[in-house]
């Protein structure tokens, strides 16, 4: 077993590891409860998978055909730069378009930062609605009392 065969084997091993990481990220994509947790699985571990695969391909071609492929290195750098940016942008768009969080999530701190004014308005509206409901209740109670007094 000479050096080239060992290099090819390492490349194939990296590719196999990338395949397993990719399947793990796919299970995360199908099983996690909402879009924010799913984006963790989809962007991070998927990037790791494709980086491992491209690195394995690079090593394989370096050792089997003595090709130092600059294009593959450029592809690695490009994927490594763009995949997190794309994930961040799509999750930001998801939050701004008001996709619901999962039911088990406990706290949403960004909501108060982004929608503080709207939340205050909603609270005021709710308070006014409560007042109206109380007034309506009083009127109904008065009507009922009138009805009782009429009957008596």
């Amino acid at each position: 077993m000479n050096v080239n065969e060992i290099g090819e084997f390492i490349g194939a091993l990296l590719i196999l590891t990338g395949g397993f990481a990719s399947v793990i990220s796919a299970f995360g994509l199908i099983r996690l409860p909402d879009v924010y947790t799913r984006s963790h699985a989809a962007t991070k571990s998927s990037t790791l998978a494709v980086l491992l695969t491209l690195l394995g391909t690079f090593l394989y071609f370096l050792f089997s055909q003595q090709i130092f492929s600059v294009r593959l290195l450029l592809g690695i750098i490009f994927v490594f730069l763009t995949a997190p940016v794309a994930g961040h942008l799509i999750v930001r768009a998801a939050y701004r378009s008001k996709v619901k969080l999962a039911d088990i999530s406990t706290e949403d701190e960004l909501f108060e930062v982004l929608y503080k004014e709207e939340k205050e308005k909603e609270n005021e509206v709710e308070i006014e609605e409560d007042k109206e409901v109380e007034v309506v209740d009083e009127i109904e109670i008065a009507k009922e009392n009138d009805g009782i007094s009429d009957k008596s």
Partner: protein
Amino acid sequence: MIETMITISLVLFTITICIAVLRIILGPSMPDRVIALDMIGVNLIAMIAVVSIMLNTAAFFEVILILGILSFIGTIAFSKSIERRVIIERKRDR
């Protein structure tokens, strides 16, 4: 040995893409579908690299670069379209 490992990894990437297609069909919201599409693009890049090993040629490496760029631009366009309902803004004031 190496042939077997590469074939197994190709099958694994195929399984991943099938699961992502399932998420596109199921996905309750639009960003879910876009995330799954992005993942399909990234996995296609890896699949093309593996196929170029199987065919023993270096001719497909440009495809990797161009597919990466197209997938990135597609995701950006989708996210802008979801966030602001427009993709190309004529007057950008913020």
